């Protein structure tokens, strides 16, 4: 479904050039769920943004469903096949557009017919009732907003969803609801996921395979099972796993306390 080979992304020119991604390569099969993990600045979100054409300065090969993409331009067919869900549902929805407008505009841009019926179906499929249709973002909770963002992404009936930290702005109980929703949608629609997250347990739960990134490079690719067992090959991946799973006190607490 997605093939990324020798991807380089940079910002700035000449001596100010920052290499955000360095020859990253991975492939994601149809129906697979692939995770990208790493610390901030490791380039994981940048990869998603380069795939969707949000950056022009990249080189390498990116193929979606066998179609090679280049530069910043993406065809209509690309946007139909690939959609993205962003981290912050507070920032990714227009504050003065109602849910109805967000969805109808998207559907219209995607050249869909029967917009009215589709909106109802979309809202149902993300677990929001019809009562939410004419609400504005400030009348929704964080979880509900993320559901709207997911509905917007689904409007194009994509095959590949790029998820950039879709639940890290949400409470854990709401995170559980959104992750369940995403799993259900993947099963129902046979979607392919590429999910960026700093939370390894979320990635282990959602993904079949993952890549660990550091400083713009893919350090290691592994199965989710490897992540769970902690048997990473490289030292960095092992350190990251250890740091994520626990905080250990170095000093023993004062017995008087």
């Amino acid at each position: 479904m997605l093939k990324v080979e020798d991807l380089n992304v940079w910002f700035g020119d000449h001596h100010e050039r920052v290499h955000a991604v360095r020859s990253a390569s991975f492939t994601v099969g149809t129906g697979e769920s692939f995770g990208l993990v790493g610390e901030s600045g490791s380039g994981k979100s940048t990869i998603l943004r380069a795939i969707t054409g949000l950056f022009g300065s990249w080189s390498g090969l990116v193929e979606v469903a066998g179609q090679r993409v280049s530069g910043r331009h993406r065809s209509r067919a690309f946007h139909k096949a690939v959609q993205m869900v962003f981290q912050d549902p507070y920032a990714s929805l227009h504050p003065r557009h109602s849910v109805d407008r967000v969805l109808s505009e998207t559907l219209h841009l995607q050249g869909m017919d029967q917009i009215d019926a589709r909106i109802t179906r979309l809202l149902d499929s993300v677990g929001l009732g019809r009562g939410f249709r004419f609400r504005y973002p400030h009348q929704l909770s964080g979880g509900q907003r993320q559901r709207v963002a997911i509905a917007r992404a689904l409007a194009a009936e994509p095959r590949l969803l790029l998820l950039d930290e879709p639940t890290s702005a949400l409470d854990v109980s709401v995170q559980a609801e959104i992750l369940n929703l995403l799993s259900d949608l993947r099963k129902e629609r046979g979607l392919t996921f590429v999910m960026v997250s700093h939370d390894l347990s979320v990635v282990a739960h959602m993904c079949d395979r993952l890549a660990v990134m550091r400083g713009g490079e893919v350090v290691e690719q592994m199965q989710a099972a490897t992540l769970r067992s902690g048997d990473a090959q490289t030292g960095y991946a092992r350190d990251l796993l250890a740091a994520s799973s626990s905080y250990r006190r170095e000093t023993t607490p004062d017995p008087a306390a």
Partner: protein
Amino acid sequence: MTDTLLSVSNLRVSFPTRSGVFEAVRGVSFDLGRERLGVVGESGSGKSMTGRAILGLVRPPGKVTAGRLELNGQSILNLPEKQMRAIRGSRISMVMQDPKFSLNPVMTVGQQIMESYRLHSGQSGRAAREKALGMLHAVQIRDPERVFDAYPHEVSGGMGQRIMIAMMLAPDPQILIADEPTSALDVSVRNEVLRIMDKLVSDRGMGLIFISHDLNLVAQFCDRVLIMYAGRVVEELAAKDLHNARHPYTRGLLESLPRLDHAVERLSVLERQDGWRDEIRPNGA
């Protein structure tokens, strides 16, 4: 707990709204000693507001009332702003979640730390500079001289948060209220920041109120945990017993977390019960 630094009883914070009075905190009581006290709950549970109320940072029309709000036996409830300012920073400080919004963007890091220190200690500029560099060193900033002259936008998020901690700790407060101090940070930096705070509690006998939504982290880092729901403390337990929590809300939160150690098909979803808002806590207080 040998001595009580801060004693809070029946703390309430309310805001008038168009549809009536909204109570953000509804009768929170606890004592803080020289320990790490975790306060967990979801957004809107009133955990941050509790921290702000202690520091007198609730702006009108918000109203703070309490049966008792005492720092070392002295009431600090609704003190005049001038007196509060003498306490805030020097005796109780607060570290906020996002360093980007709490550092002054047009002042260098060093100037900001010096300012906060001089304000509370009355020391000379030279002593303040040394103190500031020392604090930057203490929070494990590798090149304190460079960071001293840097502006906040020139440092990373993790470094910004360490700078905030350095600034807050320069006047040697007895109590630090840390409101989600690590949720904007990467795990490796997170552990470093935690270790710094941890050391301050064990070495200097500081009291730490650690506000977080991360149950696992609080279980590992803190000594004692308060679980808040809808403005009230629904359960209080030793951090090491958190995973044996009894309250259905705490259990629900724990169970909704995806686990690294074993796979589950579906995550369990918290079923909220109306009774949680107003029930009487079984374990006293």
